[in-house]
Structures are given as structure tokens and as C-alpha cells.
């Protein structure tokens, strides 16, 4: 159904008129010009479209936009602060935890969600939490290392 919705994206309230069954992914990309979340499978099985909804990782491709009205939505574009990368972004950069990079934004958002819940995850916990994310280039070992590095960076940033 077409209706007026308020979306809070990266701290900014946006009023939109749209079909409320549309996927959050398509609204972020096509209506709001935020391309960090990617389409990979459309069934929530690859994680490329992951964003945070009230701090919790969600597959935006299977999330109807009407269900997240008024909730706090964070995309990769909302992670930087004062021109500085978020520690998770910094860690992915330092570990070079990507090849083609198509899964990276989703991985970063998934990792942000994990570290919010568990600031010091073990490698096994990282693998379990991120298991729904695919990296077809196979950089999984590096991603685990990047999340561990991000965990250390976050501890340092928030003593």
C-alpha cells in the first residue's frame, strides 16, 4: 500500500511516500541514493544487504520498508564520524579483508552488530555470527582477523 512513511536513516529523519511492502534495500538504494547495501540474493542468505535497525543487523532485502518506519536505520554511509573511519572500517582496511569488495559493506555492518552485542568475540563466535554472510572471493580468514582487530581498536577507543 502506498503511504507516507518516516524513516530515520543515519540519524536523519526522511519523509517518503511509497509502497510499504517494498524492500528496505530498494528504498535505501533507489530512493535515498545510499548504495553501500548491496543486492546479492534477495532471500537473506548472503548478507550483502545488511544494515543495522536499532543497532541490530537486518537483511534489508527481506525487510519490508513499512516495518521499520520510525526505527533507527544505520547504513555503512553512516559509520564515519568527523571524517574518521569507524574502527570496523579501519580494521577491514588494515587487514585488507576483501577482494572484489561487493560483500564488504554488509560484512562491516554485520561486524558492527556483533561488536555491539559482544565487544570481545572469539574467532569461533565471529564465524558463527557472520555465517549468514557470503564472501565468494573467500577472504573469510581475513574478515575474522579484521573483526578481531576492530574489537581491539574499539577497546582502545572506549577505555
Amino acid at each position, binding site marked *: 500500500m502506498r503511504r507516507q512513511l518516516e524513516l530515520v536513516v543515519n540519524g536523519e529523519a526522511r519523509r517518503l511516500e511509497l*509502497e510499504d511492502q*517494498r524492500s528496505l534495500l*530498494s528504498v535505501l*538504494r*533507489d530512493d535515498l*541514493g*545510499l*548504495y*553501500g*547495501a*548491496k*543486492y*546479492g*540474493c*534477495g*532471500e537473506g*542468505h*548472503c548478507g*550483502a544487504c545488511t544494515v543495522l535497525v536499532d543497532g541490530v543487523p537486518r537483511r534489508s532485502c527481506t525487510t519490508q520498508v513499512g516495518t521499520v518506519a520510525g526505527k533507527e536505520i544505520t*547504513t*555503512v*554511509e553512516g*559509520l*564515519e564520524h568527523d571524517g574518521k*573511519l569507524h574502527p570496523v*572500517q*579501519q580494521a*577491514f*582496511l588494515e587487514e*585488507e579483508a*576483501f*577482494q*572484489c*569488495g*561487493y*560483500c*564488504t*559493506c554488509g560484512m*562491516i555492518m554485520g561486524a558492527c552488530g556483533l561488536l555491539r552485542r559482544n565487544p570481545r568475540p572469539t574467532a569461533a563466535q*565471529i*564465524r*558463527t555470527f*557472520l*555465517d*549468514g*554472510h*557470503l*564472501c*565468494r*572471493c*573467500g*577472504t*573469510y*580468514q*581475513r*574478515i*575474522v582477523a579484521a573483526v578481531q582487530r576492530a574489537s581491539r581498536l574499539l577497546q582502545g577507543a572506549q577505555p
Partner: protein
Amino acid sequence: MTDRERDLGQAPEVEAAQWGGVWEVERYELWEAAGDAVFSGWSRREFLQAAGGVVVCLLVRPAVAQPPPRGRFFSGSAPRQIGAWLHLDEKGNVTAYSGKVEVGQNVRTMLVQAVAEELRVPVERITMVLGDTQQCPFDAGTFGSRSAPSMVPQMRRAAAALREVLLDLAAERWQVSRDALAAEQGEILHKGDGRRIPYQELAGGQRIMRIIPDDVPLQPPDRWQVQGTAVKKVNALQIVTGKHRYTSDVQLPGMLYGKVLRPPALRARLRSVEIRHAESREGVVVVRDGDFVGVAAPTAWDAEQALAAIEADWEVAPEPDDHNLYEDLKRSAVSGDARFSGRAGFGRSGAAGDVERSLREADIVLEQAYRVAYIAHAPLEPRAAVAQWEDGRLTVWTGTQRPFGVRDELARQFGLSPDQVRVIVPDTGSGYGGKHTGEAAIEAARLARAAGRPVKLVWTREEEFQWAYFRPAGLIEIRSGVRRDGRLIAWECHNYNSGQSALATPYDVPNRRVEFHRSDAPLRQGSYRALAATANTFARETHMDELAVKLQLDPVEFRLKNLTDPRLTAVLKAAVEAFGWGKPAQNGRGFGVACGTEKGSYVATCAEVEVDPEEKRVRVVRAVTAFECGAILNPDQLRNQVEGALVMGLGGALWEEIRFQQGKITNARFSAYRVPRFRDIPSIEVVLLDRKDLPSAGAGETPIIAIAPAVGNAIYAACGIRLRSMPLLGDEWKAATSG
């Protein structure tokens, strides 16, 4: 005739025509033969005139650009070529142009390093323009592991030639001998009095065109300062911030979103279609052109709704089924097709000695068949394109490994000349050999033409699985003979359908015959990372393991007994040593080993697996891969490639298998098609052998070939079940562990 045209020699169109017919998409074996040809595309006069600063356009003589292409598909001499060119602007920034594309293999960074090394300019001041048919020199495509051995040297030569030009200009300006000068950090330095002048001041807006002299001095590998070092991916910041624009992120003013009506099965034909309901929707354009039916609409949602409103009636044709796949591949094979015999491998004859006689003389004869399933590339970014028509000219953004090939496909489709079509390839969400074609580009362009506005088309995951092409399934039959002392004396190998890469054995066998047989393939098939080297290495290395068991020899010892190739021996020994081969495995676990060579690089992998046949569970615990590809260009990115290839290879090794019934892929989703995930990843160790004395070979493909047989052999070692099919945990495993 301008100076530039004189330099270019004969008309590029004529040269292109001589190469016609080579870039046939479906012909897997042609891809193997095609190699990496580079010749001039068309005049880029506009570009040259528009650019300020110094333009150095370099003609690379064929003799030095690359070794002559192999195979019967090339004849006559290679045309004159522009392999690469460079532009130095007024601020001292360098732009280099290459027709290669970035699909995650890090060619962008590798080429920046090549320029930085020879031009002696900091990496940060170099920009690579890749895969834009209007700006870049022609390139056949990004495949075949050709960028490192072919494009990197061309880029280096181009950069070195520009450096030499700048040294000449400085010597002239200062009236000193060239010997007194050196190039460093974007400046020419007078070694005697310490005077310095930035490159851009020397160039002073001139336009310079040079043919690279054959003897342009290149930095020897033992003195590399940038090549061989772990330079970080140059556009990594864009990736972690989400700012990089893949094709599916390209947005144009007034752009519409496209969807295409797909048949219910592979060979179904459109009988009739009702488009009125779709057409009556606001802002929707419906295109019907033969069997092609598509829509373009203001939003992706509108496009989906419009597509759903179309009613189509399909004519059902006899459709392929995977029921008797391997039997059918053998039955339909063109046996003894001489064109494909004896050519396999690199410099190693397919046939020698007397196989029949040596089999009679052998102490042990083993005959076995191996199967390799169809698998999908499943790049995380599915096919996508954005097409725009302006004044009869077509521009398409699309993720393809063959920008020039897709440009020509588009030109043919729409009756244009190639220079009326521009293909731009944004760095792409991977390809693995799966994006050689321009389906999405053509579809988007058809819709955009009808709509009179730009159209974006992004394939769904299901479309990508159903309508892209696959790595060919194959049946491989091997007959071998060994003496009791462990010497291989006979080797006969037939590959049905999957391909001939790495079909020849790297072991020393005096009597051998290998043959590739083409079959009637039920599915559309094409290139896949490492081509058939994965299938052929799986069959051979599994067979070698079986022979070792029969001989009661250690599989490493048996291989070394029959191996004289020093590079393959070196990686095998390195992997075995790092793995700690020879120690007993824990209960329920087993060790396996495999090695192979392809495209000038060498790989050996040891795997440790844990098997529980009761629970039908297999877990790969640990893998060690040793890899050697000549002089290492970037150790960190090489490590990333080797590790990634191993992980990708695990999918084909254990689970990946395209299933199809009545022309429909039955597992066309990530929830049904099992690819490697976090939980599957073993502990991985990569050992890199750096051979500074050898030219650099590509590394994106070969590291994938040894993991499957290493894991299969380890499963046998752990539980005594011999698996001869990829995926290992498919029907054969289920049968072996049931009941």
C-alpha cells in the same frame, strides 16, 4: 594522415578483421587457445586532443609484447599493438590506461605498482583507467591469468619509456649528459649538483608519441622497490566506505529500471504474450521483440509489478535433465577428434611411446572414471548493466571481463559500428570467468532504446543461476600402468566435455596418450576460474593416490618418484614440510595431498579432514598450500588470491553441483546451492615461493586446482571411502554412507 596515424600503421579495422571469429563465447576450448591478444582498437584522436600535459602513446612491438599465441586459432603474425599508454598531467599526476578489468584479483593495484616501479612516481599519484573501451587500448579480456605475464610487462615498458623520454628532456634542458641524471619520486635529479626538476615541468604540455624501443631498460627484480612489495589495494577506502560504485550502483538522470520476462525452462519458446495490462501502467514501457519481452519503469518496484502483469504462453521443447548426465556426455562425444588431441598442456606432448604395450608390461594396471559436476560461478554481484542512448550512440556500464567483446556484441546486436558503442566496466563484484558475455548489457540497451531513456537492469540471483553459463560437467577416464618399484610407465586419459587444461600429466611417463572429446552439452557452458585444470587435476591426483595405495607407497614418495619438474617438486616439498606430512593422523582424521601446474604456476596442497561416516559428516580441519608463480609482484595480495582460490575450491570440492530437471535449474538460490561459508573454513596456511629469477605468472586461477583431490584423498585416508566425483559429498558419498 596525421603523425599518430602513421605511427599506428595499418588501419585498425583491418587488423581486427584478421582476428575475427576467435572470440566465440561458448567455445570453452577456444578460450584456452585465445590467450591474451592485444591490438590497437581505433583512433583515439579526440582523447589525445582533449588531454593536456604530456601524452605518451606507446606502440609495443609484438615480439616483445607477449609470446606468440598458441593453437590453431592464430595464424600469421600478430598485428602492431598499442598495449598501454600513459598520460602525465600538469600537476605531475599520472594516468595509465589498460583494457583489463578489476574483478577483485587486484589488477588495478598490480598495474599501479608496475607504473610506479618504472616511472619512479609515488603510488598515490598514479590512477589506472581500466575497462573503458573509449579510453583504453584494446584488450581481449581479463582471463587466462594473462595480466601478470602480459599486461604488467607492457605497463612497465610503457612507464620505462616515458621515464627515458623525461631523462632525455632534462638532459637537453640542462645541456648535460644523460648519465649524470636519475629519475626518482616524480623528479629528474642531477646526481652531480643535486638539481631537481619535476616531470611535469619538463613535459610542458607537449604531446609525445613513442614506440617503445626493444631495449628500454627495466628495473631488474632484485632491485624492485615497489613491485614485489605489499602495496595496499589502491581503492580500498572506497570499498570500506561504500563509496565505490559497482555497475548496479550507477545512477543516471531520468533512468528507468528494467526487468526481462524469462522462459519457464531453458529451451522454451514464446508462443504468445499479453502485454496490455503491463503497458497500461503509469510510466511503464513494454518491449516485445521476437522472444524478448521486457519492461522499463520508473522504479524497480513498478518494473516488477509490470512484469508480473504480463501473461505469456510458452511452447515447451524437449528439455535437458541431469538424470544420465555423464553417460550422455560420453555417448555424445566426438571421439578421437584429432583437433583436440595431443595439444593439451604446455610444451608437453599429449602422446608418446606405446601405451598398449606398456600396459601389458605393467605390474599393476588401474582403470577408473572420475566425474565433475556442472557448477555455477555465483559472483556476489549478479549480471547488471546501465544503458544510455545519445544521438545514436550507445554507452553501457556493465560488469564484464571482456569490455571490448561486449562492445562488439552490442555493435552487432544494434547494427552499429564498434566506435558508436562505449562499454565502461566499473570495478566489478567478481567474475571468476563467469562474466565474459554481455547478456545484461544487450537487454538493458534494448529497453533503453525503446524507452528513450537510460535503463538499469540488475539480474536477480535466480536469473544469474538459471541464465548465465556454467563450468562444464565432465567425465574423465584414466588407465595407467606402474611397475612394482613405483615407476609410472603408462598413462592414458580421456576427458569428455569438461576441457583440456592440465589434461597432460606433469609426471614423467614414457608411454602416454591424453585426449579431449567434445560432447553435446545439455547446458550452456563456458570459462570458469582455471577452466578444466580443476577437473583434470582432480582426476589425475585422485588416480595417483589410488596407485600409491595399490603400491603401498606413501603418496608423496610415489609422486616424487615420478616427478622431475623442479618447480612442481619444490612446491610439493614445501607444502609437505609446512604441513608436517608423515606424522600419524588422529583417530577419525586423514591427510591428503595433491599437486599440479597450469598457466605457468605451480601448486601443492595438503589437507587434513575429519570424517564421521556414521554421521555422514566431513570437516576440512586444515589446509596448507604452497604456490609458486615466478617473481612475486605483491606478496600480500598474492596470499589473498591463493587463500581465496582455496576457499572457493572447497565449494566445488565438497558441495557445489548444479542440478537440473526439465530445463530448469532446481537449486538456483543460495539457500539451495551450497557455497563455502564462515563455518566451513579450515585453518589455512599459505607458503609462497618467490622466484625472482623467473618471469611472473598469473595467480588468480591455479591455486584452486589442488584442494579437491587433496580433500578427497584425505577422506580416503580417514575412512577408506574412495570418492571419484566432484562434489565429493554428492550422490557418491550419500550412496557410500547410506545403510
